[in-house]
């Protein structure tokens, strides 16, 4: 048995053991959704980082360096940009107000089942897009690692993630994330040391070698290849800055700790792990340029750039390191899709079924049963989406949910927490406008309209419409709140007239 198979099988056995252990502790709804708020800040911080450090981050960011040179720094810096906002503005208030989902926190101020329909639509859109990017990466990896056809690879991943979530709930998902984040960080550190050792631990030599692969080394310094212009740059920056604070699977983790202070501390640990990881990714990205494209493995065909990091491992440490890295990437994808599936399942069973369909009259047993069915359905959907989108850059697909999260969830959440005059009608209108404009703009942009749909020219010339969709959501929420508010300030306004 090769090293990759051994590590992968070891990971699967360990995670199934965790799932079995967790299943006895995930009997009630609160246990299933939030691990009974029993996770410590350090554990939660590592799990949060694990949720965020997907294989799409690892493979997509190194692929961006490999394909676009210095422009890869967009993804490396952007990956951290949202954590200060989430730490300072969202973590504590959300934990204080909510119990299981962020819709619970919104319901502390606003009312009506329509609100939960809106938050569920946003959650399912975000998780659907994110799951797709993860499944595409997983399909490629397993195909490369075990020579299993892409379709069977997705079926294997789908089966495992359904098992984790269905039986282990949040407790299993958290510990699987902790194991995976530790494995990924250690493996990335090992690769970073090997890359630096190759260049006598001299960053200067590494950068020079990377630039030397270009016909004109000064081209290496030229930025602007990955992003088409300032509009896209602003859009991507806003998506990275506000997206994490609107991602449902990230928000859900704030409820797994005992109090708001613990939620805030979790983010401090998560930020530190993510920052360390991104620093190492910069080195690995430069390493792929310097070593992979000019090394024994030659240039990749289009579509294989996503595996540049894995090829780098092969170049550095032969088949053993190749196997280790590929297996860790696969483990990473498994853990992340489990977290996304749990967030989607919670939106369906807790927000939609319990509060919208059953009007808060369902039993706990019913809700848990619905969550199991939803897990199965979402797992099947994820496999289907992975098959449809197999030829897209996984790094780009990973940023799409950020645009949606930054345009729909984030503005409504922040307004609900900090703006006293927000009304249910305003939140609903703003949330739907943010969701619709962000999805529509992505579809009409160059990457989807021309590359996926095969049209000649895109309707919109930019891919990241966050400035417009975020502004639209805020403007509509504020306007409708002013128009629909019947509180004291509106009475005073009427009197003044």
């Amino acid at each position, binding site marked *: 048995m090769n090293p990759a198979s051994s590590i992968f099988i070891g990971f699967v056995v360990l995670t199934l053991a965790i799932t079995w252990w967790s299943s006895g502790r995930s009997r009630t709804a609160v246990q299933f959704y939030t691990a009974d708020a029993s996770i410590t800040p350090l554990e939660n911080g590592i799990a949060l980082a694990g949720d965020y450090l997907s294989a799409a981050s690892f493979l997509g960011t190194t692929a961006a360096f490999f394909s676009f040179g210095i422009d890869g720094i967009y993804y490396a810096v*952007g990956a951290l940009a949202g954590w200060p*906002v989430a730490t300072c503005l969202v973590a504590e*208030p959300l934990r204080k107000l909510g119990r299981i989902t962020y819709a619970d926190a919104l319901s*502390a101020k606003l009312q009506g089942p329509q609100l939960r329909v809106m938050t569920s639509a946003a959650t399912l859109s975000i998780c659907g897009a994110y799951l797709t990017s993860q499944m595409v990466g997983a399909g490629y990896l397993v195909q490369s690692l075990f020579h299993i056809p892409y379709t069977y690879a997705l079926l294997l991943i789908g089966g495992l993630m359904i098992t984790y979530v269905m039986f282990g709930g949040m407790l299993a998902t958290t510990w699987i994330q902790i194991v995976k984040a530790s494995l990924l960080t250690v493996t990335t550190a090992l690769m970073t040391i090997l890359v630096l050792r190759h260049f006598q631990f001299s960053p200067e030599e590494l950068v020079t070698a990377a630039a030397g692969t270009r016909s004109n080394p000064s081209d290496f310094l030229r930025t602007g290849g990955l992003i088409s212009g300032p509009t896209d*740059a602003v859009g991507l920056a*806003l998506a990275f*800055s506000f997206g994490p604070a609107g991602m449902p699977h990230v928000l859900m983790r704030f409820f797994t700790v005992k109090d708001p202070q613990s939620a805030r501390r979790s983010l*401090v640990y998560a930020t530190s792990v993510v920052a360390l990881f991104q620093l190492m990714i910069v080195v690995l990205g430069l390493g792929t340029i310097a070593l992979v494209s000019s090394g024994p493995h030659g240039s990749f065909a289009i579509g294989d750039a996503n595996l540049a990091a894995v090829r780098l491992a092969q170049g550095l440490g032969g088949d053993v390191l190749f196997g280790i890295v590929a297996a860790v990437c696969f483990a990473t994808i498994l853990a992340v899709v489990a977290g996304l599936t749990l967030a989607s399942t919670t939106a369906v069973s807790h927000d939609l079924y319990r509060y919208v369909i059953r009007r808060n009259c369902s039993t706990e047993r019913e809700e848990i049963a619905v969550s199991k069915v939803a897990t199965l359905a979402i797992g099947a959907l994820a496999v289907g989406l992975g098959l449809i989108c197999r030829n897209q850059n996984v790094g780009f697909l990973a940023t799409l949910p950020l645009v949606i999260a930054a345009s729909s969830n984030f503005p409504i959440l922040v307004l609900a927490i900090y703006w006293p005059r927000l009304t249910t009608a305003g939140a609903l209108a703003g949330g739907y406008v943010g969701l619709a404009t962000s999805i529509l703009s992505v579809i009409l942009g160059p990457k989807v309209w021309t590359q996926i749909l095969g049209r000649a020219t895109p309707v919109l010339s930019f891919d990241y419409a966050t400035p417009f969709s975020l502004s639209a959501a805020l403007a509509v929420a504020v306007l409708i709140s002013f128009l629909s508010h019947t509180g004291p300030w509106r009475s005073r306004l009427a009197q003044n007239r």
Partner: protein
Amino acid sequence: MELSLNKFEQESPRISWMAWIVSILTTLATLTFFVALSVNATFMTAPAVGAFGNRALALGIALLFAMVLAVWLYGMSASTREDNVSSSGDRER
């Protein structure tokens, strides 16, 4: 169980000015960095290739460190500011 408006009023934590400043500054820094990269601004690129002679890399890494520092400073501060984030909402209820 749905949370009541009273609970919201009692339990909403106050977020300090420091939180807003950290959030706004890090967002502005990211925006500036991204726009400068996208237009290949001259201050982002050094004339020669070398160890962090490429200022885009150096600035990007400096930004990473600054954000971690900001999160540590705010996140580990001892006090928790209570109450008064927002106090009304759907008053028509």
